[in-house]
């Protein structure tokens, strides 16, 4: 494959973007659409004290859950940890800080980060101490809102069905989920793709993530875990 933008690379090169204490944002929803190869690389890197930002903590053996099970995270920003009891246990034991955000608001905060906005004003969970406790409030047109800060990360990792050498991405069905949002919010965005196709092979209409948001592409070997329903 021609590589005129030098974005197509391998796991070895990606490793240098992983470091202790980093903020990492990951795509996926219950593990569906999470990048298996990039997550395994993170595990193998041995990097720790991570702050992980994403929809949920997956399952103990699925998606980002593997990283949490290995004790590599010090903090998680997510909407849900219920499918990964190890995350709940670590939280209860004081070994993992968890910041909960309502699911759609989390998605919007990530999008706002990618779109270069400072925050959004939301009326979700205003009466809930865990959601609103540390948040500032703002009254607009006589209605009170929470100020929900934008989220960005040093590195974003996403999973896509197809990618071209510029980094344009197309997703597969519900594996799209948070990936297009996460792809925009990383200072460095790395996409693991099932298939790399030549430049010009993707219809400009079907591209969901324009390549300008993607810094590196690595080919994927596909999901390496067993789903809960299997």
């Amino acid at each position, binding site marked *: 494959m021609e590589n005129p933008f030098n974005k197509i690379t391998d796991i070895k090169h990606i490793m240098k973007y992983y470091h202790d204490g980093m903020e990492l944002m990951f795509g996926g929803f219950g593990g*569906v659409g999470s990048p298996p190869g990039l997550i395994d690389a993170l595990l193998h890197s041995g990097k720790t004290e991570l702050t992980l930002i994403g929809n949920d903590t997956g399952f103990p053996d699925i998606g980002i859950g593997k990283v949490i099970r290995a004790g590599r995270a010090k903090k998680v920003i997510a909407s849900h940890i219920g499918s990964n009891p190890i995350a709940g246990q670590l939280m209860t034991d004081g070994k993992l800080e*968890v910041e909960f955000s309502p699911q759609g608001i989390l998605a919007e905060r990530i999008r706002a980060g990618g779109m270069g906005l400072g925050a959004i004003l939301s009326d979700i969970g205003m009466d809930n101490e865990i959601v609103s406790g540390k948040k500032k409030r703002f009254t607009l047109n006589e209605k009170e809102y929470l100020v929900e800060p934008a989220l960005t990360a040093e590195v974003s990792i996403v999973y896509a069905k197809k990618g071209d050498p510029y980094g344009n991405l197309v997703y597969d*069905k519900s594996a799209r989920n948070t990936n297009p949002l996460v792809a925009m919010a990383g200072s460095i965005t790395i996409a693991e793709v099932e298939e790399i196709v030549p430049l010009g092979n993707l219809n400009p209409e079907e591209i969901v993530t324009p390549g300008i948001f993607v810094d590196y592409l690595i080919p994927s070997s596909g999901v390496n875990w067993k789903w809960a329903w299997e």
Partner: protein
Amino acid sequence: MAKRAAEEITEGMAVNLGIGIPSLVPNHLPSELLVMFHAENGILGIGGTPLKGSEDENLCNAGGLPVSVVPGASYCDSATAFGMIRSGKIDMTILGSLQVSQTGDLANWIVPGKKVPGMGGAMELSQKAKKVIVLMKHTDKHGQSKLLEKCTLPLTSGACVDMVITNMAVFEIKDRSLVLTELFSPYSIEEVTEKTDCGFLSASKIRKIEY
């Protein structure tokens, strides 16, 4: 319960179903009824469960279970899926709960010190869907009423529930008052009253449900 909830769904609605019993609701709908089932991860137009062996790992509902899609379905990112909810386009959500208060407060996201799943999309759905229906057993595993004067667990959203369907009865919540409207056979009003830890009004005419 799922069968009764299915009666609330009418042609052309957009409906979000929670995990557990709510996910059984489509089994009780006439196959010709056009309903767009919504999933928070980014699907509008979920169809039936695929046959064993023909599941697609990249086509799952918000609970992570394989699904299919109907004609007219679309995929979107999760931000847009929740935009549909917050802007009031979802006609109905049917979800499970740990507790519901007599004024319609919902508590279904956390049991402090025990279970900390996180709210997921429950706050957006319960605050913003046009109609919120809770399906839950009338009592918990210790026999305690899950309908209460005031929820003892932390709230998901206040004053949001429109209808509660338990294994014993159906209640509507109107003007922040709990009203018994239907009884599942063979339960009586007296039995429901005994198992319910809060007062409730009775509708002038109470339907007996005998499926």
